[in-house]
């Protein structure tokens, strides 16, 4: 079986800095893959390399076997890959409905305007913004904008949804609500690749986790295994052996 998304030996340099180096992983159909790592590990850069915002210096990205390495973002979107941004990017002056209609119109299914409005309404209902349909995006709260960002990506009816810290900045109630929404999305057969700092949430949501540190893959596996990997603990908390070794 070919994977939905294949990332093979991906590399990106900014000047002398290796932001991402020799990174390979796959996302299977229907899978939720978590991408974690300390700040500056290169997680968002990986997203930008996959969806074509940046071109990689080396390596290959493919969706269902189709090579999309270095393809423009709008071509990648057409192939069924949607994403959200860590810093929300709403079309501030447009209504919630219009924001999501853009996502639906130009997404995988190339819908007509009328059909796109239906798809947009569906996505908006799924994230629970249906009572704000005609509100301009700029009037939403941060939590509202995060949900809009998600709805807009969903409206494209993607095969793979890439989520860049959709839980960041939300309060515990909002987080719980968002986690429920993500489970509902996954139940519809959408695969998810997500970056997240909230460990509890990502550990419970993900089927597998890839840990990134300084642009390289540090560890990969089921959440429980990754959480006990000494290399991961060291990257996050410092050297676990340090306490024992400290001279008394």
């Amino acid at each position, binding site marked *: 079986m070919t994977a939905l998304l294949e990332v093979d030996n991906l590399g990106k340099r900014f000047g002398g800095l290796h932001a991402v180096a020799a990174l390979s992983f796959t996302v299977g159909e229907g899978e939720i893959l978590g991408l974690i790592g300390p700040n500056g590990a290169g997680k968002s850069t990986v997203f930008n390399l996959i*969806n074509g915002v940046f071109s990689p210096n080396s390596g290959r990205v493919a969706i269902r076997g189709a090579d999309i390495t270095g393809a423009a973002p709008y071509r990648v979107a057409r192939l069924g890959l949607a994403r959200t941004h860590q810093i929300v990017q709403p079309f501030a002056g447009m209504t919630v409905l219009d924001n999501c209609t853009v996502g639906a*119109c130009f997404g995988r299914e190339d819908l007509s305007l009328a059909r796109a409005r239906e798809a947009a309404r569906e996505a908006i209902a799924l994230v629970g913004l249906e009572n704000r349909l005609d509100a301009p995006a700029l009037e939403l709260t941060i939590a509202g904008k995060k949900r809009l960002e998600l709805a807009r*990506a969903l409206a494209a009816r993607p095969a793979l949804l890439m989520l860049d810290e959709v839980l960041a900045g939300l309060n515990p109630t909002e987080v719980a609500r968002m986690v429920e929404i993500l489970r509902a999305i996954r139940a519809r057969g959408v695969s998810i690749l997500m970056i997240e700092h909230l460990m509890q949430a990502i550990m419970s949501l993900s089927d597998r986790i890839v840990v990134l540190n300084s642009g390289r893959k540090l560890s990969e596996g089921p959440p429980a295994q990754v959480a006990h990997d000494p290399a991961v603990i060291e990257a996050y908390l410092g050297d676990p052996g340090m306490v024992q070794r400290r001279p008394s």
Partner: protein
Amino acid sequence: MLRRPFFWIIAAAIALFALAPHGEDVELRESLLLAAVYITLASNLNLMLGYAGYVNFGSIVFFGLGGYFCVYFMGSLGWALAPSLLVAGIAVSVAALVFGLGILRLRGVHFALATIGVNEAVMAFVTNFEPWGGSTGIYLSPELFQPLGGPAQALWIIYYLLVAIMGVSLYLSYFVKRSKFGLGLLSIGQNEDAAAVLGVPTPRYKALAYSASAFLPAIAGGLYFFKGAFVQPADAFDLTLSTEAIVITMLGGSGTIVGPALGAYLYEELRGWLLTSETFANFQLVVAGVLLLLIVQFAPDGLMGFFYRRWPRLRRWLE
């Protein structure tokens, strides 16, 4: 679409323009003719400025080039008016597509500067292009008015054609805004990177909008310079008219459908008043400049933006 109020509002505006001046009322006709030209320029500029968010300071290059093509086809090649206008429109749209592919990689201030550059480059080219008369331009023989029934009747025909072009411009604004293409353009105007990530083919859409916004102004330019039976570089590529088109669009409300028309009509009235007043003659551009400053500073969404905020229901009616 016959059910949409806007269709009828445009139809009424066209009828008003067509019926208001008649017989000897040449003064009113000339004033409305200029208003129709302004509305055409502003509505088409609005496709780029208001929808896609790209400031085109050199939009007048379409008008001037259209004028040159048309006058050349008629005067030197002996074509009739209709094919000259049509081919001029198509030629300028194709030229715009070529310019667009070059300069639409730029954004913001850089794009705005490049549009001025395009206008200046074309003007410099035409000034040195002998088949088009170089810096002296092209004069048309008055005999060319004969097929239209003599100069007096020709002026009326030109007027009605310009009103028709104005009407088509308004309908074009409307259809683009209500289409998928228009939604894509609006999203580019809001946040181009986010639009691309959502799948909007941004380079193609921008180039198409830029090219489409050239077609009708080129035809209007053809009619305008045919009317004067004379075209020269300084008139055809006068950045003043470009700037006025921006003031008009911003005054009425950029990105709205009715705004450019409303702004154009008000601006033409104001201009007429300034030109005839003794104190303010030749003051029109100063006023335009001050107006632009005030709008950008205090009412960036113009008159229609103000109305829509005041009466939100109006937007459903008019957009």
